[in-house]
């Protein structure tokens, strides 16, 4: 029967001992441990989240880099194409201009030559007419008197002579 009758002395001591143990452990024992472990698991969770975020941003940066690289490449191609086009255009323009200038110079030269020829011909003609006049004068002075009919004839003759050939 004594087995199931709680003894007062033991109850008293148990209350005291358990009370003291509870007080000590609840104040200096378990909260320290559980708080530390809780804090650590939060810390680990944070670190994991941070790592995930870092991983994502690295991935994003890689994608961005790839995009930039591709963009640069297309731009480079475009620039090269433009440059070659511009080169072509400049070359053809220069060629055309040179041709035009050459033609212009040729034409100028031809005109000058023609003018020179004309003036030379005119000079020659007047020279020839003066010469023939002098010759005729000399001949005529010998044979003819200076009559008005003869003078008119001479005039006509010299005009005929100074006129350009009919053909």
């Amino acid at each position, binding site marked *: 029967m004594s087995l199931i009758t709680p*003894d007062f002395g033991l109850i008293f001591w148990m209350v005291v001992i358990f009370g003291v143990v509870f007080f*000590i*452990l*609840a104040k200096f*024992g378990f909260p320290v*441990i*559980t708080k530390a472990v809780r804090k650590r698991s939060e810390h680990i969770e944070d670190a994991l989240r941070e790592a995930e975020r870092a991983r994502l941003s690295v991935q994003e940066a890689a994608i961005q880099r790839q995009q930039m690289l591709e963009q640069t490449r297309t731009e480079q191609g475009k620039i090269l194409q433009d440059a070659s086009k511009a080169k072509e255009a400049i070359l053809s323009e220069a060629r055309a201009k040179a041709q035009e200038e050459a033609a212009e110079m040729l034409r100028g030269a031809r005109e000058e030559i023609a003018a020179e020829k004309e003036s030379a011909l005119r000079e020659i003609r007047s020279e020839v007419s003066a010469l023939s006049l002098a010759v005729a004068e000399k001949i005529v002075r010998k044979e003819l008197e200076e009559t008005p009919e003869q003078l008119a004839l001479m005039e006509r003759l010299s005009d005929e002579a100074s006129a350009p050939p009919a053909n």
Partner: protein
Amino acid sequence: MRPNRLTVLLLLAALLLPVHAAAAPQEDAPAIDMNEYIFGHISDAYEWHIATVNGKHISIPLPCIVIDGGVHVFSSARLGHGEEYQGYRIAATGQPHEGKIVRAADGSRPVDLSVTKNVCGLIIDSIILVVLILLCARWYRRHDYLKEAPKGLAALLEPVIMTIENDVIKEAVGPDYKRFSPYLLTAFFFILINNLMGIVPIFPGGANITGNIAVTFVLALFTFLMVNLFGNKHYWKDILWPDVPLFLKAIPIMPAIEILGMFTKPFSLMVRLFANMLAGHIMLLSAVALIFLTAKMGPLLNGSLSFVAVVLGIFLDCLELLVAFIQAYVFTMLSSVFIGLAHQHPEKETH
């Protein structure tokens, strides 16, 4: 190979033990009193009996403290063998208050606050527990626990503490668990260490502490206080004015049942722990008693049954290790559940 080894073991047991038995004169040795043997081991005592060598008891005397119109403190050695000291003696077998200190004059009981075997065991186990937990807590104070993995004692205790807190306390108590977790953890480890020390057969252990109804009574009382002192409005409404048809509470049938339930819950905690630990001790003692009971029945029977007793003892010890943990776990879990029930928030009634 296997049967061979078993046979060798059996032979060894059979050969060794009879020699020992033959060496001692068995014929005139008194027959073992099973009742005294078992109850002597599982009940509380004023001295801590360690062993009996050649009929001489080796025990540690413990202080007796009696409050009876003044404080009387004396060693329990003075009350040995029914002796009387300062007007007190230990009541003999068959008398009222058997085995307790009584007044020598009329056999009545004074207020007895003696440091008995169980009190002494409680103190030793509590010191061990407090030192273990404080050493573990010190590790967290002294180390950068965010960067270092726990070592040594902290590594041993941390998983247990966190398993109990996360899987038992947090689940059962609910969102308010942080307020109650120190009590529940203390209860768990207090019961666990006392259970485990109860299995250790020699001096600092071996006291049947958690198998004593006074100890489990106090533990259940603490849980009762924790449940009822911090219960919320909904809890008290459920007890005093439950959600049942009016005629069941106009004549307070349901409140009476609910109030009874307030006490039966911790009562079940008390009896469960007490009965489990007591039964475990009795089983182990009975297994060992086989050896002594059969001592006079001839070498063969004694030898073979001793072997059986040792095997059975090993098995029961393993079982008790398991039970020590399970009972601490169950006590903590049910305490958590009771505390959790007192902190429920009323859900919207759907019916």
